[in-house]
């Protein structure tokens, strides 16, 4: 198992902030982090599995919304600020829509929503919050929302 090797070919993406997402192992790491955070929430709060999935789903919503759709630019200055008006979601794959990475990232919140709602037996108020979260996330990832700032929220001066 330890001898399982993967090959990594350099990509043509010059944006160092987003090109790490094209290397092998990212999808598995993402899914494993979600699974282990569910186990941690279960052990810390000692709640039911459904509540734990709801907590994971909502926390995932907050974190991914903040880092993918709110924060703009890159965490280093070497690119002289050419991406300063774009959020991380708008930067990946050089702005091309409907690539494999984007489809994967859109499916993950939906699958989390289905797991959370199923394990809580579709009860309120968890269902309401879960639905709101997945709605916001999926709409933010639509191709038509590329570079759109509704009501000027998060727009530049």
């Amino acid at each position, binding site marked *: 198992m*330890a001898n399982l090797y993967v090959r*990594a070919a*350099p990509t043509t993406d010059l944006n160092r902030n987003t090109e790490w997402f094209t290397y092998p192992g990212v999808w598995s*790491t993402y899914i494993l982090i979600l699974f282990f955070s569910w186990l941690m929430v279960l052990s810390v709060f000692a709640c039911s599995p459904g509540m734990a999935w709801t907590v994971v789903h909502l926390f995932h919503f907050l974190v991914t919304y903040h880092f993918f759709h709110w924060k703009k630019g890159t965490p280093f*200055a070497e690119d*002289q*600020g050419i991406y300063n008006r774009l959020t991380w979601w708008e930067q990946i794959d050089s702005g091309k829509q409907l690539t494999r990475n984007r489809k994967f990232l859109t499916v993950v919140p939906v699958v989390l929503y289905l797991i959370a709602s199923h394990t809580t037996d579709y009860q309120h108020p968890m269902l309401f919050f879960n639905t709101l979260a997945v709605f916001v996330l999926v709409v933010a990832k639509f191709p038509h929302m590329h570079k759109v700032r509704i009501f000027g929220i998060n727009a530049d001066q």
Partner: protein
Amino acid sequence: MITIPYITALTTYFSYGLLFAFGQLRDFFRKIFDWWSKSSLQGYAPICLGLEDFYVRRLYLRIQDCFNRPISSSPDAWFDLVERISNDNNKTLKRTTKVKRCLNLGSYNYLGFAAADEYCTPRAIETLKNFAPSSCSTRVDGGTTTLHVELEKCVANFLGKEAAIVFGMGYATNSAILPVLMGKGRLIISDSLNHNSIVNGARGSGATIRVFQHNTPSHLEKVLREQIAEGQPRTHRPWKKIMVVVEGIYSMEGELCQLPEIVAICKKYKAYVYLDEAHSIGAVGKTGRGVCELLGVDTADVDIMMGTFTKSFGSCGGYIAGSKELIQYLKYTCPAHLYATSISPPAAEQIISSIKVVNGEDGSSRGAQKLAKIRENSNFFRSELQKMGFEVLGDNDSPVMPIMLYNPAKIPAFSRECLKRNVAVVTVAFPATPLLLARARICISAAHSREDLLKALEVISEVGDMVGIKYFPAEPEKQQLEGDRVKLE
């Protein structure tokens, strides 16, 4: 092609995620503390925008002692490293007066000209006395001395091109020449791993930039065909000029460019070739003429050859070599020629003398010996490292060899443990390399003796075991069968 163990990829992403999460947490608390304490600069806009310096503040500063180490002697095979201490957990570092003698595995000292040389140094000192340390002028005003003219002739002869032009700085050569040659309506196709100077020069030129997969001639052909068929972005008019920019040896991979195939493709589609030989001039090839000689490409096929004098010639500055008309045009238009100070006279003399040594014109065979030594050293070191089980990149004959580290915690571990054993290595991480592929880059020099290399191998093997970077299985030792029988286990 880099081969990573899958578990290492997962743990590397997890480590970076953890570092990122802790950095964000600290930033969050810092914002709260700053909100409490009023700053004196009310009403001013912030200097850094949002998370622009996040990487520097939260990741780079933690391991700052592995980078920017000051030295207090010339960067020969062994040099004096100044020790630094920190009282606030690496946020600031203070130099001490203590100095450590270390084996230098990081300097670009390919032919050993970085230290005092018996032929070059007296001549450089002579020139320092006759001329001055600086020419104090631009080339067009009063900065062209006989040395500059001789240097340009020397460089052109060395490369087998018609004429050459030299500049005071290698980075400025790329970033000032590309805007002159290319502009709006022209296309630059550059390798995805090209150096920052080329990227900045290309962005500053205003030309359209397309990137092709690193060292993949088939992808270059695909991009060329697509771009020629489509034409300029919105008008679809044909491109005014297309230039393909590649490097001789890629400094972070140690790989040689696939020059014959790329030149053949460019000839077929009538695009210009710009070859940046910063790391390969003087270091590869039978007589040190760079990657064209090594791979058997005629220099008349490469339209613009660029290089620097910092690496193999022990000086500073850059050059462009090409046809007479091209160099004449550059002398009229290039801002680095018209407005920047010309190359310093002792530095020019150092280059002329070192080229003479490499050619054998100083009357000895030291040049040929140095070239043979660096090739032998590089091949020996690389094969030994690979036998020990390290993942080493780069082709044979290339003096640059990166050892893959991957995990972010192994970067400072490797660097500090090697320093404790008096070996100085350079480690490179994000954002100079992709996130996953952090590495320690070793530059072999002709000044390294066999004992130096064996000591380096011993130290690297010991530290490698401690840090855990032997990702490939080591080759078993060959059994010795001299006299005593092999013991059966």
